[in-house]
């Protein structure tokens, strides 16, 4: 028996998903499309040409007021002071002990900073932000007011140019306010698939119009609506983490290979603890692994060839592009070198695999 939780939130594009006959699920309190024509087909369409995703469920916060930049700088592992107008930065927010609150995108807008954060971490993030923000800082939750559409794939620029003007000067992690089919939107060159692509923020009352407009523009390139199922297989092929799955409140960013998002020359909450962890050495390391046969999944044990547990799978699937099982998981650092043979226990049976370098797939971007 299955039923949809009746108090799940709906995005402004819910009507579109129903119209297209999407299979829906509840994800982090949102009623979202898992797939329309099928996960494999949607995944391949994104790599081959273009796909369009509703990602309106992502938490969106407008942060403003006196001292906002200092506040964001203090809570971010990355250097927020480097942001100029219309720039995007990826950062981690940590607690004093170095454990993760959330990973977020920070967008510098004209009158505020926009934080785009994980729907699944909202319950952890919001109280923590409230606790740490100085008086005078205003945090406005605009999640329900703004829709967000992700257009991803090699034909993304050609498609969006038709209705939004030239995007040649919008490089990766840059944004701009512009009209898309005559409607004011904020467009960033960004995404979670590894392909070239854009995330389009628009006021909720124009969401359907923008969706239809993009679909029409993309028809000549066989644009495919794509759901959360393909979103997950695409990001996994790239080795991108999902906070809440691959990195949670008990983990630190060093273990999750995110040292590149930490700028040691600046101050931030959790810095001392992370320096200490770096000095002492990590207890576990997030790695990519592939299997010869079988599909690794969240929670499956990773073992050495003698059957001793050495870790756990955090995210796993079959790679639609590669045709074999791939996973992210934590292992004892002694087993983290690419090429190391490991087993994943699937239904009690050890299935042979090896640690591999990330990404699993070389995307075109």
């Amino acid at each position: 028996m299955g039923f949809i939780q009746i108090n799940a939130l709906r995005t402004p594009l819910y009507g579109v998903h129903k119209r297209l006959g999407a299979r829906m699920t509840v994800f982090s309190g949102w009623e979202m499309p898992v797939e329309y024509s099928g996960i494999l087909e949607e995944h391949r369409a994104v790599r081959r040409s273009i796909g369009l995703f509703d990602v309106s469920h992502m938490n969106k916060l407008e942060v403003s007021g006196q001292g906002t930049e200092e506040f964001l700088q203090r809570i971010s592992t990355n250097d927020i002071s480097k942001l100029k107008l219309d720039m995007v930065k990826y950062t981690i927010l940590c607690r004093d002990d170095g454990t993760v609150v959330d990973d977020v995108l920070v967008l510098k807008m004209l009158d505020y900073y926009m934080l785009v954060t994980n729907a699944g971490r909202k319950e952890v993030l919001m109280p923590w932000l409230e606790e740490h923000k100085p008086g005078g800082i205003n945090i406005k939750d605009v999640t329900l007011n703004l829709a967000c559409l992700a257009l991803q794939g090699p034909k993304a620029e050609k498609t969006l140019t038709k209705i939004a003007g030239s995007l040649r000067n919008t490089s990766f992690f840059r944004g701009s306010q512009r009209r898309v089919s005559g409607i004011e939107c904020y467009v960033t060159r960004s995404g979670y698939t590894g392909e070239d692509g854009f995330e389009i923020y628009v006021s909720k009352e124009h969401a359907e119009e923008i969706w239809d407009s993009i679909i029409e523009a993309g028809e000549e390139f066989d644009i495919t609506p794509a759901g959360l199922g393909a979103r997950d297989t695409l990001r996994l092929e790239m080795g991108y983490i999902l906070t809440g799955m691959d990195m949670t409140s008990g983990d630190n960013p060093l273990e999750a290979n995110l040292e590149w998002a930490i700028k040691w020359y600046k101050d931030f909450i959790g810095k001392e603890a992370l320096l200490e962890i770096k000095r002492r050495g990590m207890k576990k390391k997030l790695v990519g692994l592939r299997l010869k046969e079988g599909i690794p999944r969240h929670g499956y044990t990773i073992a050495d060839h003698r059957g001793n547990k050495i870790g756990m799978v955090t995210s796993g699937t079959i790679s639609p592009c590669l045709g074999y099982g791939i996973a992210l998981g934590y292992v004892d650092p002694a087993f983290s070198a690419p090429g190391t043979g490991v087993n994943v226990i699937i239904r009690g049976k050890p299935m042979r695999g090896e640690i591999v370098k990330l990404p699993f797939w070389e995307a075109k971007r």
Partner: protein
Amino acid sequence: MKKEIKRKREKPKILEGLYYTKTHEWARVEDGTVIIGITDYAQGELGDIVLVELPKIGTSFSIGAEFGYVESVKAVSELYAPVGGEVVEVNKKLESQPELVNSDPYGEGWMVKIKMNNLEELKKLLSPLDYGKLITELEEE
């Protein structure tokens, strides 16, 4: 011409002449053996099937027992025996073409053939009509 991008949400097919389980397996009696697979409703609910794990020839199981697994991209699902018996044949095609279960669940997507222990067990299964009622109820939820 505007392309109609619509998910194939046709009514799930139910074949006459088959027996069905509440867990969405079907059984067909043919020349003294019973052929087993999963229904059109089941494959539709699972989505793209990427792996089918079946027992070896000679394996015995009783009615209702777990005899294998079918994996879609996102989920693992157990297969339950409609009747008890011994496996006499396994559909080897599913190793390299698990998608046959999606495209032809009652034909090329068949899973195992068993030698049944007890013909009486067929009486415990659902008729096509009763199975149809079951999935109508499920779709209304």
